[in-house]
């Protein structure tokens, strides 16, 4: 069974069956990662380039490891050490790389829509590893995988996405995915960080009070305050943000039920999440990272399968 798409540009383009297939396949890859030899030969003939025009630790290492665990050949590219600094255009850069017979492109870019633009102009399969403030589909998939693993199901669960909704591609991908899989979604944070018309556009709940949000949800997906994307003052200080929207152990203990804490990383400790909450047993942040590897293996595998047929 193929996915309904040739590229993974965003969760927006996927149908629920695709998401189900990716998560089910990831379950099998998670088993592969427990084996004495954590590697399968499936993508032996595939060459993948990781194009990172923006900084990344987790996502890049995770993709690179996923590719290696599938036996693919990988090439890494970071914009700062390349001819991009000399003024080469995105399309020229990618076409030059593709003429060296590269089959798949994993790309992160600070411009929203950059992978969509590439997908219209090049034959290789593209996986979006985060584009500007648009989408970060593999993060949403690994979040969903972690929720499913922890709670058994996604449908009917209450997920609160908390923090900088306005600048977060993780938030957008998560909202698309969770709605498609039948979860109840709430976005919470200061009014200045939640775009207008969220409720109308995505049919999600909007909450400005942190405690109310935490009392409501089964899972709190806490987002990073993205200072690098904010060019105007949206809250007065990090300290004040922490006082109103920071999650700590004391707050979690005062809730009427035990909720699960997730965070896509990197954590601003002491801002959106205090250390005692980030490292508590309610937090599944490190499991998310582990699951990310299996989910990315599943995406790479599913997008490369039957490749001779496609050509």
């Amino acid at each position: 069974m193929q996915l309904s798409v040739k590229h993974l540009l965003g969760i927006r383009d996927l149908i629920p069956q695709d998401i189900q297939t990716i998560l089910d396949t990831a379950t099998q890859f998670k088993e592969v990662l427990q084996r004495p030899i954590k590697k399968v030969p499936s993508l032996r003939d595939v060459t993948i380039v990781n194009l990172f025009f923006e900084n990344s630790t987790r996502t890049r290492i995770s993709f690179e490891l996923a590719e290696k665990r599938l036996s693919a050949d990988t090439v890494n590219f970071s914009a700062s050490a390349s001819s991009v600094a000399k003024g080469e255009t995105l399309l020229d850069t990618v076409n030059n790389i593709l003429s060296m017979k590269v089959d798949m492109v994993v790309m992160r870019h600070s411009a929203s829509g950059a992978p969509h633009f590439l997908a219209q102009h090049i034959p290789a399969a593209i996986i979006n590893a985060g584009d500007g403030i648009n989408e970060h589909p593999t993060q949403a998939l690994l979040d969903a995988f972690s929720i499913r693993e922890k709670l058994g199901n996604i449908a009917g669960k209450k997920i609160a996405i908390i923090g900088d909704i306005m600048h977060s591609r993780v938030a957008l991908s998560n909202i698309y995915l969770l709605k498609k899989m039948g979860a109840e979604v709430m976005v919470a944070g200061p009014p200045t960080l939640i775009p207008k018309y969220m409720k109308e556009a995505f049919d999600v709940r909007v909450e400005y009070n942190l405690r109310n949000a935490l009392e409501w949800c089964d899972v709190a997906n806490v987002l990073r305050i993205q200072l690098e994307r904010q060019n105007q003052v949206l809250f007065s200080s990090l300290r004040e943000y922490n006082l109103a929207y920071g999650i700590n152990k004391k707050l979690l203990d005062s809730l009427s039920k035990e909720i699960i804490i997730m965070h896509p990383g990197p954590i601003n400790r002491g801002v959106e999440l205090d250390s005692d909450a980030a490292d508590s047993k309610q937090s599944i942040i490190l499991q998310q990272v582990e699951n990310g590897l299996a989910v990315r293996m599943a995406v790479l595998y599913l997008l490369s399968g039957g490749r001779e047929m496609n050509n």
Partner: protein
Amino acid sequence: MKTVLNEQQLAFTIKRLSHQVLENHVDLENTVLIGLQPRGIFVSDQVVQQLQQLLPAHKINYGKLDITFYRDDIRKELHIPNHTDIPFSIENKNVVLIDDVLYTGRTIRAALDALLDFGRPSKVELCILIDRRFSRQLPIQPDYVGKAIDSIVSQKVKVFWKQRDGRDEVALV
């Protein structure tokens, strides 16, 4: 559709296969059984059940192996994987691989590759319910055969199981 094994014959065949395995692996001392996903599991479940009746005190090491990621036709077709569950070490063990139909031998080739990623067994044997002989594309032969049949390429061997299809039967379609 031509019946190859009816319900009673199928039951006897599985019983015989189980006894033959036990004949060569006394008390299953150092032996593990591994069924191949997805269809080999129906055979291996029943073989293991038989062996358990024959050795009630013994804890049988029984695993399930999926070979999807090791297939040689992955470039032509996308296959969705099944679950692998081998909760024990196969290092220096005698492994009996169990599948329903042996045809080209390509599945077993993939299974051997997959198996070696779990360790280095001292010996691997192959137990097969139906052997479509003279149709091998690789030099692979079974050690235990339920029934060997002659068939042509256009024919298919269908194995029906009670828990899935409502009846036990092997047929040539």
